[in-house]
C-alpha cells in the first residue's frame, strides 16, 4: 500500500524533483507547475473520486485543488509536495461534498467508480477472481451510499492509511468524532450489504 501521508524530505529523487518544480513555479514558471500537475493529476483524481463518487464533481474538485495549490504555493513550508497536494485535494473534495449537501436533490449516481479492480492474483482460479471483483463492486456501491463524512473517514483510514489523528486534523473534528464516523459508516455499510453478506463470508 503506497502511503500518501507526510514524510520527511530525504534524498528521494522524486521529492527533490517535486521541490525543484515547485521552486521554479514560485518564481513564475507556469510550465514547472504544470509539470507537477501532470505528475499528480491521476493520483489526486483517484483519491478525490472515492470521496466524491461523481466523475464530474470529482474533476471539478481536482481542478479547484490545483487552482488552490497554485494560489497557495508561497505558503508551502517544506516536506512532501505529494502530501501537500493530497491534503489540498482532500479539502477540495470536502468542499465539493458541502456543495452537494446544499443541493441534496441530486444524489450521487450509484457506483460511479466501478471500473477499477485490484490486480487479480495470477494463481487464482476464475471463480475466486470473479468473487473478488464482485466484492469490490458491492463495497464501492455501499461506500457511495453512506454519508459524505463517513465515506471520507473510511476512505482515508481504511484505504489510504491515514491514522485517526491525521484524519481529525484534515477534517477539522476530534479523534472521537473520526472514530465514530468510521464505526457508524461500517455499520451502515453492513446494513446496505445485509442481503449480500454471503459474498463476504465465503
Amino acid at each position, binding site marked *: *500500500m*503506497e502511503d*500518501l501521508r507526510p514524510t520527511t524530505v530525504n534524498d528521494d529523487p522524486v521529492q527533490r524533483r517535486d521541490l525543484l518544480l515547485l521552486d521554479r513555479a514560485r*518564481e*513564475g*514558471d*507556469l510550465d514547472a*507547475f*504544470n509539470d507537477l*500537475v*501532470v505528475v499528480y*493529476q*491521476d*493520483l*489526486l*483524481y*483517484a*483519491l478525490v473520486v*472515492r470521496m466524491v463518487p461523481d*466523475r464530474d464533481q470529482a*474533476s471539478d474538485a*481536482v*481542478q479547484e485543488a*490545483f*487552482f488552490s495549490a*497554485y*494560489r497557495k504555493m508561497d505558503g508551502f513550508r517544506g516536506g512532501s509536495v505529494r502530501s501537500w497536494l*493530497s491534503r489540498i485535494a482532500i479539502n477540495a473534495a470536502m468542499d465539493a461534498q458541502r456543495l452537494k449537501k446544499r443541493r441534496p436533490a441530486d444524489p450521487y449516481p450509484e457506483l460511479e467508480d466501478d*471500473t*477499477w*479492480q*485490484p490486480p487479480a492474483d495470477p494463481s487464482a482460479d476464475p471463480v475466486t477472481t470473479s468473487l473478488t471483483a464482485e*466484492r*469490490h463492486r458491492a*463495497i*464501492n456501491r*455501499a*461506500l457511495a451510499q453512506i454519508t459524505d463524512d463517513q465515506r471520507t473517514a*473510511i476512505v482515508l483510514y*481504511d*484505504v*489510504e*492509511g491515514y491514522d485517526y489523528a491525521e484524519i481529525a486534523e484534515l477534517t477539522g473534528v476530534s479523534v472521537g468524532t473520526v*472514530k*465514530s464516523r*468510521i*464505526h*457508524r459508516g*461500517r*455499520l451502515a*455499510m*453492513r446494513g446496505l*450489504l445485509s442481503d449480500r*453478506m454471503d459474498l*463476504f*463470508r465465503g
Partner: protein
Amino acid sequence: MADQDRGSDDPRLAAIARHALHDEELVTAFAAGDVEDPADLERARAFVERCSMCHDLQRDLVAIRAVTRASGTAAQRAQTHAAPRDFRLSAEDAARLRPGSPAARLGVRPGWRARLSAGVAAFGRPVGAAMATFGVAGLLVGSLALGGVPLASMGGAAASTAAPAGVDANSEVPEASLYRGSYGPLETAKDVGIAGGQSGGGGTTAPLLLFGGSIALLVVGIGLIVVARRDVGPISAQRGN
C-alpha cells in the same frame, strides 16, 4: 401446525429481542479494536460471545473492513486509470489566480483587443440598450418632423431647430400661427426667422440629420447588445473544457 411454527420462531424472536438491547456501536468499535475502557471492553466481549447476532455483526464488519482495505489506494488506481481531463493551468488561469506573480506580469498582459472585449462584455448591453432607445426616440421625432408636423408645435428647445420649409422669414404670420412654442406665441415671421435662423436655416436638413443620426444610434446600439451577448458565454466554454 401453526403452534409448531410459532414455537420454532420463538427462540429466534427472543434472540432478536435480546440483540435489540445490545450496543451495536460498541460491537463495531470492538471489531475495529478501538475500545479502550476496560468495562466497555468486557461488555463488548460478552455481547460477541453470548449473542449470535453480535457475533455475526463483528464477523461481518471485519470482512467488510478487509475488503475495503484491499479496494486499492489512490496510488494503485492512478497507475491504471488516468484522470478524465487535463488539469494543467492556462496562462489566463495563472494570471487570475496570482495577479501579481511574475507569470502574470510576463506572460499574459491583456492586449487592447482583450481589454476592449472585456469592456464590451461589461458595459455593452446597458450602453447598447440606451443607444437603441435614443435611436428609436430620434426616429419618432424625425419622422414626425419629416411628415410635416412642425417640431415647434411639440414645444421645447427642439422647436428652434425645426423651422419648416417654405416659411418666408419676412412675411407676416398670423398670431395663431403654428409656430407657437411653449414660451408663448411668436408675433411675426421675423420672430420665427430668428428662431429658425439659429439652427442655421436648416429647413429639412435638421430633421434629416436627426433621422440619420437616430438610425445610426439604433444600429450601433443593437450591434453592441449582440456583441456583448456573444462575449458573455458560459464559463465552461471560455475555459475550453
